[in-house]
């Protein structure tokens, strides 16, 4: 009997506003299909979307895959990638629908391995302890987000409106979604926690397709994922998360360090101190924003980067990976070569500044003029004006990148969908 070969791939890029939700279907030579759901989350639905929009999507996924998902991939823990996996008390949440599709495999990055906490008995300083500390600290860092959002609720006028809005957006994206996390860890028949060059577990489910895990690197594979040097990783991560959590907890009403020397409180400052006090509050808001952004970026850097390679085509799904995550793969010539002829590119991190590395973009050989045969396809799931700012050149999606995508690839974006459209569909012969 001839080995089963994929003949086509179909990508459904669902309209989730600011978030990602991709259903990837491979159709085989015997007309059978395999379905992989890559992320399902949002932090901002488009205007006019129904309350039950995510449920609608979940039901559509159910219909598209015929009630059976082969795999679920949750690239990383951010709400805009996993909030759709949350279950509801009445058993009718979008996550309940996905769970009912009995995925054979749930694939997540190594940092999501919840068992690390109980299994690891490595001595301090060992690789296992470092991994444990890193995974645990990523979870603890979500406390920073929680503290920050709580502080904004408690003191709505403490920071200026612009800073407060950005803090809230990033804060809410980073808040732990316990229901989704739990559902992901238990819904699959098998769980795989992958890292750079590890097995994805997908290949046995997708005959004829090679799946390369390009990221995230482990701590040993990359010191660049965190800027640590000559420090025991376990200790380092512990310190970072603790320090950050403390900062988040103290916005605007940490106890004074010199209680006996307080001469005035915020609202009743003497005239000579007011100008600087106002400026310092804004500076503090910006500081906090920078910290929350850095944590946000670190979480993005735990993203899985998957390359699906069929006999003739390559499909790249990098989640929200930023340059530090990419750097390990891109430092190796074999991956630079492997990536050079990508056919379909899921645009990294909703089109942000640092998620499409220039070294990779410049080498994409299938991009080019509209007339180019076999021209590269790109798919972007995003919503403008939610993240970053044009003034600072950090807007998402980055206008410059979108222009390049438009001019050099067959560009598909969820922002082009009309009201009521559920997804963008991209077909590709593989």
């Amino acid at each position: 009997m001839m080995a089963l070969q994929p003949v086509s791939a179909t990508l459904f890029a669902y309209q989730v506003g600011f978030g990602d939700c991709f259903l990837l279907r491979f159709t085989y030579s015997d007309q059978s299909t395999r379905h992989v759901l890559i992320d399902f989350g949002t932090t901002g639905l488009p205007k006019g979307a129904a309350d039950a929009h995510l449920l609608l999507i979940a039901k559509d996924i159910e219909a598209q895959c015929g009630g059976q998902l082969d795999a679920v991939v949750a690239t990383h823990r951010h709400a805009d990638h996993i909030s759709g996996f949350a279950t509801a008390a009445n058993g009718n949440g979008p996550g309940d629908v996905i769970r009912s599709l009995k995925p054979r495999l749930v694939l997540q990055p190594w940092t999501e391995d919840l068992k690390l906490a109980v299994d690891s008995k490595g001595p301090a300083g060992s690789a296992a302890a470092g991994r444990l500390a890193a995974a645990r600290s990523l979870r603890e860092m979500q406390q920073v987000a929680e503290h920050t959002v709580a502080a904004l609720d408690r003191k709505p006028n403490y920071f200026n409106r612009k800073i407060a809005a950005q803090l809230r957006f990033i804060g809410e994206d980073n808040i732990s979604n316990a229901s989704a996390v739990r559902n992901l860890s238990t819904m699959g028949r098998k769980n795989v926690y992958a890292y750079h060059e590890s097995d994805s577990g997908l290949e046995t489910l997708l005959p004829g397709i090679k799946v390369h895990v390009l990221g995230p690197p482990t701590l040993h594979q990359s010191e660049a994922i965190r800027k640590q040097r000559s420090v025991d990783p376990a200790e380092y991560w512990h310190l970072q998360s603790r320090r950050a959590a403390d900062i988040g907890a103290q916005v605007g009403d940490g106890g004074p360090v010199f209680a006996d020397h307080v001469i005035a409180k915020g609202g009743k400052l003497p005239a000579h101190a007011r100008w600087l006090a106002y400026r310092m509050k804004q500076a503090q808001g910006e500081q906090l924003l920078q910290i929350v952004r850095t944590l946000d970026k670190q979480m993005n850097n735990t993203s899985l980067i998957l390359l699906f390679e069929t006999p003739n085509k390559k499909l790249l799904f990098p989640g929200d990976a930023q340059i530090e995550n990419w750097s390990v793969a891109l430092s190796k010539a074999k991956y630079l070569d492997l990536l050079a002829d990508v056919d379909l590119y899921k645009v990294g991190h909703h089109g942000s500044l640092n998620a499409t590395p220039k070294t990779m973009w410049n080498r994409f050989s299938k991009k080019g003029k509209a007339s180019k045969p076999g021209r590269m396809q790109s798919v972007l799931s995003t919503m403008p004006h939610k993240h970053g700012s044009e003034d600072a050149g950090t807007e998402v999606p980055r206008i410059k990148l979108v222009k390049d995508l438009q001019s050099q690839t067959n560009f598909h974006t969820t922002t082009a969908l009309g009201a009521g459209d559920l997804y963008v569909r991209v077909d590709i012969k593989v």
Partner: protein
Amino acid sequence: MTSTANTRKLTILAQDPSVKLGGRIAFAQVDVPAEVLSSGPVGHRVKVIDFDASANVLYAPRTFGRTQVEQDLDPYAPDEKMTAAARKRWEERTLADPRFHAQHCYAIVMRTLARFEFALGRRVAWGFEGHQIHVAPHAFFEANAFYSEQDRALMFGYFKSARGDRPVFTCLSHDIVAHEATHAILDGLRDGFTNPSTPDQAAFHEGFSDVVALLSVFSLKEIVMAALLGKGKVPPKGKSIRLVNKSALTRKAIENSLLLGLGEQFGAELEGARADALRRSIKLKPRPDLLDMPEYQEEHDRGEVFAAAMMQTFLKMWLSRIAGLGTFGGDRYNLDMVVEEGAKAAENLLTMAIRALDYCPPVDLSFGDFLAAVLTADAETVPDDSRFGYRALLRETFADYGVLATGGKIDPKTGQWASFDKGDLVTYSRTHFESMLHDKEEVFRFVWENREMLGLDDRCYTRIESVRPSVRQAPDGFFLKETICEYVQVLNLYAAEIKAVLGIDRPDGMPTTQRVTAYGGGTLVFDQYGRIKYHISKSFQDSDMQSARLQYLWDHDLLEKPRSARHRFANIHRSRLGAEGDA
């Protein structure tokens, strides 16, 4: 009675609360410029306001209020006759008093500023409008401290110790305060050094601030003495000569005791958070290819290379001065003399470094430019370098770290800027000597009149950044008087135009519609007769420079990305202290 004192003594921490010398926390009394202070302290250059944004409260100021400097006694001056137990109680009480923290910050900022004014022979303005810089000693709960131009402030954070819940105050670190103050001073002297440019320029701000902080300590002689003796007690000053064994004076021993040792303990508080970064540079082994290595492309890491070259130069200077001293019994030295030589070497090097700023180009500074500037500035005041050979030492040590004073406008023999040689072509007649000493409009007229000869590009918007007098006393007792003028040229371009305008290729992948700002500029040094002595320029039409700059900014996504002055230093310092920076 009118006060006649020029300085007053104030108590500070010579390093930080965790550094103990001879079993005592290293407090020191330092001279700061005398002035009648208001409560804060608030003086003519510094305004301390102790607001804590995390707690949203204002702490009590260090009070002043006497009309005579002499009457405002330092309440924190230690009583040298205290018993050990009383001293310990006094130390605890003082460190827990935010008013002492305020005094400590004030004194170090003023001392650092005075150091610059002494070297340059003029008042030095801050880099913002106004005369007083705000200092917030307990600005917020974060392991960070930074200079913010837009807030006209130095902000010092505090955080919990890695060893427990005890608060650690960045404002109590001598080095951190001196480092931040130097950023503010440097920004006042050279505004253009904070513009996005080559990696060297950004790194210079960091490295230079480290060097000022590190070298400042050597004037605190009792501290240096105690550090040299390590666990041994400093003998009291008396009739007999105080001695130190030569084993404490090897290069390695000094590195460990004074350069690395002092910062070690505070670093431990921040375990894993790189608070010892300031001193880590000393460990950097020289390699001529260091600056080409990927790990030294980021500004703070690259700044360490600069600091390493400077501190190793200092060490060599000191050791060569010690070698010139007589010994006692062949293996011991006069401790006072040894420390005195260290103080002199540090003072000389710091003075050379500060004076060099006047001889730097106003844009796109490289480490090599700075080296040429130091060599030139020093040769102007001390033409004969044969006694200590400082200049040769500097060149040699910088070369070990891959920094060379070479290039078109540098004399390859001396490493100094080439003298201006187009004197015959300059038109002086349409400007007035007296106005040229201080008036930007007059200097602009002069520059414009001579634009062709100076190699300016008249398509650019050109402006005079500064006109400053420089007065320095040479070892022969005479004063060297110069006028230092900086001009900057700016042109906004689209990438499509850069080949035609700058003669350089567009970096790979840069779209034609990318907006690019190109800079050029120069420093004109006029002698006491108002004639150009040096023209230290980064010509707008220098295609190699423009190309390197553009490539770097493009590769690092710094084009068109405005960075607020607040963010700039905050991010760098956060990543040094806690690895939380915006990469």
